[in-house]
C-alpha cells in the first residue's frame, strides 16, 4: 500500500496533463485491488469520488464492499486524490487555463 502511494505521488510530480493524473490514480486503484468505471455505469460498489477532475467523462473507483481492496482504497484514496487535485491545480495555474 505504501509503495503504491509513493509511486503514485511521485508520478503526480511529473504530470503534464490532467489526463495523466487520472491515469496515475486509476493505476493506483488497480494496484490496490480495485478497478474504475465511468460514472454513468456506476453501481453501489463505486466510491463517489471522481478521478477525472473535470476532463473527459467522470470516472469512479470500484471495489466490492468489505473486501481488502475496498479497505485499502478507503485508507489511501482520500489523501492521494487530494494530492492529485493539488497537482492538477498547479498544472492548470502554470498553463493559466483557469482564467
Amino acid at each position: 500500500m505504501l509503495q503504491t502511494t509513493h509511486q503514485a505521488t511521485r508520478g503526480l510530480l511529473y504530470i503534464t496533463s490532467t489526463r495523466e493524473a487520472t491515469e496515475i490514480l486509476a493505476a493506483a486503484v488497480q494496484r490496490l485491488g480495485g478497478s474504475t468505471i465511468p460514472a454513468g455505469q456506476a453501481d453501489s460498489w463505486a466510491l463517489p469520488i471522481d478521478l477525472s477532475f473535470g476532463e473527459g467523462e467522470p470516472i469512479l473507483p470500484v471495489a466490492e464492499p468489505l473486501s481488502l481492496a475496498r479497505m485499502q482504497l478507503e485508507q489511501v484514496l482520500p489523501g492521494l486524490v487530494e494530492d492529485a487535485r493539488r497537482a492538477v491545480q498547479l498544472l492548470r495555474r502554470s498553463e493559466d487555463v483557469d482564467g
Partner: protein
Amino acid sequence: MQQPRITAADVERFVDALARRDRKAAAGQALGLLEAGAPVQELVQGLLGAAQAEVGRRWEANQWSVADEHAATAITDAVLGALAWRIKAPEDLGHVVVTCAEGEWHSLPARMAAEVLRAHGWQVTFLGASTPADHLRRFVAEVGAVAVVVSCSVPIFLGGALRSVQAAQSEGIPVLVGGRAFGPDDTRAHRLGADGWAPDPVAAARLLESWRQQRPAVGKRPAGMRDAEPLELEAVRPDLVEAAMGELFLRFPPLAGYGKAQLARTREDLGYILQFLEAALLTDDPRIFLDEFLPWLTRVLTSRGLPAGVVTVGLEALGAVLDAFPRSQQLIAQGRRLAAGRAVNG
C-alpha cells in the same frame, strides 16, 4: 468600490456553464466577479454553493445523470481551486484542520469551508474525503491544530462524524461540525458531542473567531446516544434487507418481474432506508427520517417513473422484519403514515 452581489442570474449563468461542461467559462465568470470586488466567501456560498444545490436538484428530478452531476461538481471544484489561488489572507489566526467525516466522500462542501476559513485568516489544512478517524487523531496531534472542522453532507455518515469528533477531542482539540447532514440547527451536533455547529462556512469562521477569545471546554457536551438500537440495527442490516426483500415479494407482485439490476437497486434502497433510520436513532432526531429522507426518496423514485406508493410498500416490508427494534418500528410506522398520505395526495 461597491461589492457586486451575486444574483440569481449569475447562478443561472454559472449552472449553464456547468451544463455545457465549460470549465473555462465557469472559471472566467467567477474570477470576473472576484476582480469586480465580490468577496471570496460570497462567491463560494452565493455562487458555487447555490449552483451545486441546483446540480443536486437536477439529479433528484432525473434531469441530470450521475455522470452529469459528477462532471458539474468537478468543474465547480476546479473553479474553487482557481479562486483559492487568489486568496490573499495572512493565515495568522491559527491552524485549523478541515476534514470530511469518516465515510463521507462528498468533499466539495468541506473544501469550500476550508477556503472561506483561509480567506478569514486561518491557516487551513484540508485532509480530504472520508478521513479515517485514527488518521485524523494522529494528524491533529502532530500539527498542533487549534480546532478541527468536521463536514458531513449525508446523514448516513453521522456515525462516522461521531468517530471523527471523538478522535479530535481525544487529543484535547475542540471540534466544530457543519454540513447538510447536521440539519437546520445544532440538535444533531449536540447529540454527537461536538463543541460547536455552524450553518455555513462564514458562520463557522465567526464561531472559530469567538473560540480565540474563549476556548470551549472540549468534549463537555454529552454524546447522547439513547440506547444501542442504532448499533444493533447496523450489525444486522444485511440480514434485515434480505428478510425485507422476502416480504416485498409478497406485498409487491411486480417485483417478480424485476431483472437482476432492478433487484439490486431495490436491495440498495432498502439498505438506505435502514441507514437513514439508524442516523435518526443515533441522533435521536426523527426529522432525518421523516422530514428529510422519505420525502426525498419519494421525489427521486417518482421522478424515475415509480409510483409514490412504492415507498409505503417498502416501509411495510421493513416494518414486518423489525420486531426486535421498537424505536425503529415506531419511526417506520410514522413514516408509513406520512408516505401513504403523500402517495394519496401526490
